[in-house]
């Protein structure tokens, strides 16, 4: 039977659950998702037009897996890890069917440095060789999980292709070849020693995130928002600027042009920390909305499995999935074709456990191959709720499994307040765990400043309710000041254009300086107002303008300029103080 991407095949005895099969004369790639008697239900990763009943289905004996080894970085794959550049050279600009290609290049010679000697005992996960894959990433070749023993037939350091056997690991009863690559089934998470508590933020360079709703390395965050509210731009910002070693970007059922944008832009952009092109740490999975939905379902797993592999080398990996709602819809569509009983809004009852499994693959861990080394995967998933309504199933279930929630607000987006992350509806449960880090690495006062700024913003929110009814004029001056300073915070601090040359990425120290100066302004102004000075005196246009514009006028490498700004503001208030003292004396 053929029903869209779902095919049922008879006489399939011996085939395994999740085995990859080749369907029909075109040899379309599929995966077994249900086994009942000798009938296998297969989800086909390519368009099934023209497929007929009684066409042959062949097993491959392999579970749906990814190929892990040098050559991953800088690649673009589809949802089942077919390399799109290679497909392009094989079949042209449009994706044809039945074309397969190895994910990694088998011809390319890599400079391999071998790190073990003949006869050494090696353990699972141990790093036994390394390759400088790009100028930014050292690719560490590991003994695959579940394999330990004595290293024999160890090659010398030299130039090898990925298929070369570097050594043979002999245990009592088995011999295993260790090559430059290994395979791993995508639906099984890779093992590690133990999970660790969050201790360090993933610095994103986005003020509203780092200052108010930080995510830890190994954390999980969701960005829900209606269309056009900024999920993709935020994800791109994180992919560009987050201080991770490896970026995995999964375009899951979204636009082709957004992938092209990354492909065209990233090679030209430099990592502010390493100075290397961003593409040299990035892997893209592009299963756009017009590509087969079943491969969209797989893309998420392909992505995390690759992420885990780099985590196992001891790296901090950040994974963005845009959009997890399209993945959930793929689950729904396949479930519908299987005629399963639907739960909420047609989604299958296992939606919530699938979402949980996915986000649980985030985390900071002690890696398998070492006693003291850690690696992490941070997952940032976009959620696209229908009608922008957060009470729908994918958003509500996601909320249960992430600890960071960056809620995008349509009205902010309409007002072109970007990023339109709502400072009222968002939260991060990592904040307390990260206080120490910010104190030690940014400033002892940083968390305090952040709290104070947030309380001004929330007081402002209350005052806005009043203003909506009666206007700002009736507020007493101290409350007016709060509204004005909150406005400086909104425009001058929270708003951050992704397209600004200076401000797209904001260093932590710059964040701290800006926050400190704005709050210093508030304190000085507030003390004058409490002494009865008119608010118009403290809202000097030039000063307010300086505060609003400092994000653009001071670049990350010229932080000393803040001293000047601070000085200007101090002398402004000093002279106001003086003037007021005189008035009082007179």
């Amino acid at each position, binding site marked *: *039977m*053929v029903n869209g991407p779902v095919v*049922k095949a008879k006489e399939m005895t011996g085939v395994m659950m999740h085995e990859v099969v080749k369907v029909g004369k075109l040899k379309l790639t599929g995966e077994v998702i249900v086994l009942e008697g000798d009938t296998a239900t297969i989800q086909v990763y390519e*368009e099934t*037009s*023209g*497929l*007929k*009943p*009684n066409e042959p289905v062949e097993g491959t004996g392999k579970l749906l897996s990814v190929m892990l080894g040098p050559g991953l970085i800088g690649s*673009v794959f589809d949802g089942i890890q077919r390399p*799109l*550049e290679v*497909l*392009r050279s094989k079949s*042209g*600009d*449009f*994706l*044809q069917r039945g074309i397969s290609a190895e994910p990694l290049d088998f011809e390319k010679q890599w400079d391999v440095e071998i790190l073990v000697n003949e006869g050494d005992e090696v353990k699972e996960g141990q790093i036994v060789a390394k390759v400088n894959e790009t100028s930014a990433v050292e690719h560490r070749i590991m003994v695959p999980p579940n394999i330990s023993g004595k290293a024999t037939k160890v090659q010398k350091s030299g130039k090898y292709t990925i298929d070369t056997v570097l050594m043979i690991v002999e245990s009592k009863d088995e011999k295993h070849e260790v090559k430059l690559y290994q395979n791993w089934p995508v639906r099984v998470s890779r093992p590690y020693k133990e999970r660790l508590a969050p201790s360090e933020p993933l610095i994103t360079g986005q003020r509203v995130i780092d200052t108010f709703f930080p995510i830890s390395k190994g954390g999980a965050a969701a960005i829900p928002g*209606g*269309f*056009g509210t900024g999920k993709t731009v935020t994800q791109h910002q994180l992919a560009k600027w987050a201080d991770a070693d490896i970026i995995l970007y999964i375009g899951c059922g979204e*636009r*082709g*042009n957004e*992938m*092209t*944008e990354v492909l*065209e832009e990233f090679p030209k952009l430099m990592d502010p920390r390493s100075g290397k092109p961003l593409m040299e740490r990035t892997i893209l999975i592009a299963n*756009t*909305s*017009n*590509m087969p*939905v079943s491969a969209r379902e797989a893309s998420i797993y392909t992505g995390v499995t690759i992420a885990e592999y780099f985590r196992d080398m001891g790296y901090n990996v950040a994974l963005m999935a845009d959009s997890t709602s*399209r993945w959930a*819809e793929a689950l*729904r*569509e396949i479930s*519908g074709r299987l005629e399963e009983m*639907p739960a909420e*809004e*047609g989604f299958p009852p296992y939606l919530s456990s699938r979402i949980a499994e996915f986000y649980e693959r985030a985390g900071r861990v002690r890696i398998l191959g070492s006693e003291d080394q850690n690696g992490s995967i941070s997952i940032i998933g976009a959620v*696209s709720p*229908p*009608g*922008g*309504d957060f009470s729908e199933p994918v958003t509500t279930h996601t909320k249960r499994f992430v600890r960071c929630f960056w809620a995008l607000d349509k009205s902010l987006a*309409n*007002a*072109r307040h970007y990023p339109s992350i709502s400072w009222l509806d968002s939260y991060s449960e990592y904040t307390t765990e990260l206080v120490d880090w910010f104190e030690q690495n940014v400033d002892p006062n940083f968390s305090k400043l952040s709290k104070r700024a947030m309380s001004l913003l929330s007081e402002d929110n209350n005052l806005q309710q009043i203003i*909506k*009814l*009666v*206007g*700002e004029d009736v507020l007493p001056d101290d409350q007016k000041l709060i509204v004005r300073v909150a406005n400086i915070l909104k*425009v001058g601090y929270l708003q951050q254009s992704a397209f600004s040359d200076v401000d797209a990425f904001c260093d932590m120290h710059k964040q701290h300086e800006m926050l400190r100066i704005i709050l210093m302004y508030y304190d000085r102004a507030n003390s004058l107002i409490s002494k009865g000075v008119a608010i118009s005196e403290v809202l000097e246009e030039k000063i307010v*303008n300086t505060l*609003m*514009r400092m994000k653009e006028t001071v670049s990350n490498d010229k932080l000393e300029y803040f001293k000047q700004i601070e000085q200007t503001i101090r002398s402004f208030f000093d002279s106001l103080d003086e003037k007021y003292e005189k008035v009082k004396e007179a």
Partner: protein
Amino acid sequence: MPLKEYMGLSQINGPLIFIENVGNVGYNEVVEVTFRQETRIGQVVQISDKFAVVQVFQGTEGLNVNETKVKFLGKTLQVKVSEEILGRTFNGIGEPIDGGVDIINGVYQDINGFPINPASRMYPRNFIQTGISAIDGLMTLIRGQKLPIFSGNGLPHNRLAVQITKQAKIKGEESGNFAIVFAAMGIKHDDARFMLSNFEESGAIKNVVTFLNLADDPTIERIATPRVALTAAEYLAFEKGMHVLVILTDMTNYCEALRELSTSRGEVPSRKGYPGYLYSDLASMYERAGMIRNKRGSVTQIPILSMPNDDITHPIPDLTGYITEGQIVLSRELQRKGVYPPIGILPSLSRLMKDGIGEGYTRADHPHVSSQLFAAYSRVQEVRALASIIGEEELTNIDRRYLKFGDAFEREFLSQGYDEDRSIEETLDLGWKLLGNLPPSELTRVSEEELKKYYKEIGEN
């Protein structure tokens, strides 16, 4: 291979027919359904080794179970394309209906096309000047973009679409290489005639290909119409190097046809009865816009859809917005105020504009002025809300200046004539002129240098 023919059906249900004991039939294969000399076209939507389910594009009205003959053609639904289609009119499944000759030379192509390999795309960057200030200044259209018009009953989306197509130009390029593919799904005869006669009138556009499925044409045929049109567009763009603007109207009618089909197939419905795969289905069409590396042509799409009850959260505009690269939203309120084109700028957006405007594309100040105009106009809405409660007299001085700006902005910037074609420079200068209503301290999104160069405060009085 001999074609397989069967006599008699086992069941008819809505637009679907069921045929038993068929063998060797492919999924999505095209079918000819003949009943007493009359032939209709269908497509296999589900098969097993026992039966095939076929959707009939012209509907099943008048068919009966025992006299209907079904012929499986062994291929998927295709349309014949060549340069000969320029200037011609076809029905919703690509058959000529203008009384002209059949398309003689040409190639058959699958109407579903194939997805563009994301690695083959070229990021669209060429600014298309539409001559409409609201669009060029604030939601710039880019060649290769998909930018829908969200409209409602009685709003002038057709007129706007006509004005865009008439005025659209790329700077420094003649328009010879330009074609329009027009696909009508379920729209009224009058609307189709209005648009077509306008395309023909404007001398610049000789190359129009039209696919018509009008309000009284078979509903299910609408499922094929946009796909047929996009197949033609892709051919002209990527085989013949033309820049093709595709107008798809009205996508709401398309979606309703899809819902009807889905219901008769007994599928589990998602929101408002639309199938759960509506997103993927729409994406399979909208994603056919774009540009390809090393190819000259482009496909730019302007789908038009009417929002049921003006509700932008309705699944059709909602899912469209999730796929397209922005949207132009028409506002009933502005229409009531007599503003043409009544483009509600706050909910409107062009996502590709950021890379196609500014220095080297339009003018260096463009990104900042547009951002400033958005911010200011958004403030106008707040002030208006407040003024309606406490009265204009109670507003602060600054707020009153915002009101003035807002009115002038709607009157002078948003409003323009049906034939008024403004250059991008005129549009930007007009924007600056209107910002003169506000004091410089409010203009935080433009740079100090730009203020010096373009800003002139309009004195209060």
